[in-house]
């Protein structure tokens, strides 16, 4: 395939320099979102928000065929990250299929606040994308419960 666009290729040194400058510019653009959101998320850890949201969500976990305690892991995943989630998940006595189910659902929807900010910093609609993640996690959860119910897996 021939290269149609004839872009002037600058020398390597010039490219290194532009790369560095652009790299810093990119990071600063992201930091505007990341730093304040990180502080909010970190403060919410000690505020008991996870506990109260978790106990509110617990009765609904049955909809996915999961025990109520997993709600705390889901909230921890959504607000903080997956490492916080498995710390909650590990002591629970889940079947391998339930762990896989949690893995897919939390894999899709985790660290929503911070990553939503990162997505917004690219110029995309971070809020809508985050909503898509939550919806897809719910769909994936039902899909996997269905697979198990049909006896295809688990």
């Amino acid at each position, binding site marked *: 395939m021939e290269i149609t666009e004839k872009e002037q290729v600058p020398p390597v040194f010039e490219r290194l320099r532009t*790369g560095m400058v652009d790299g810093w510019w990119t990071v600063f653009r992201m930091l505007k979102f990341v730093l304040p959101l990180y502080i909010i998320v970190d403060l919410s850890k000690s505020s008991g928000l996870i506990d109260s949201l978790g106990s509110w969500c617990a009765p609904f976990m049955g909809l996915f065929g999961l025990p109520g305690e997993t709600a705390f892991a889901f909230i921890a995943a959504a607000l903080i990250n997956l490492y916080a989630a498995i710390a909650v998940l590990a002591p629970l006595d889940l079947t391998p299929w339930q762990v896989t189910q949690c893995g897919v659902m939390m894999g899709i929807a985790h660290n929503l606040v911070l990553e939503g900010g990162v997505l917004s910093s*690219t110029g995309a609609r971070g809020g809508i994308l985050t909503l898509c993640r939550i919806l897809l996690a719910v769909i994936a959860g039902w899909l996997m419960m269905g697979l198990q119910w049909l006896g295809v897996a688990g």
Partner: protein
Amino acid sequence: MTALLDATLGGLILCSKLVLIVVPLVTIFEVLRHVRIFQSIGSRTEPVMRCLGLGRSAVLPLFTGIFLGIAYGAGIIIRSAATGQMDRRELFLTGLFLATCHAVIEDVLIFVVLGGDGVVMLGLRLLLAIILTVLLARLWPRKTI
């Protein structure tokens, strides 16, 4: 007060990590962007990308994000957007794919440790991200000039 201080400190540590990874990544990207091999990779992957409703400028952010994580993919997306290589539609579709499917290796391994099935987790996430992106690309047609 100490909580706020701790949070700020943690945030600054995260920021320095971002600097350490994103600055070299963008620099490498800027240097390699003009190399012929990378341009031909762009042309080869074009048919696959077209299915997702994306152009060749989305290849690198997409793969960076899938393997390294969303923050690093985003670093490259910001560059591509700033140089006018990606429009709003492409930004959203790339963001959609990466929002649902990123840092797959790390994420999957975390749950494999607990006894989850890695192949199912990886396969299902990729599949769902592809379906969602293709669906939205169809519903939101590219502007014809």
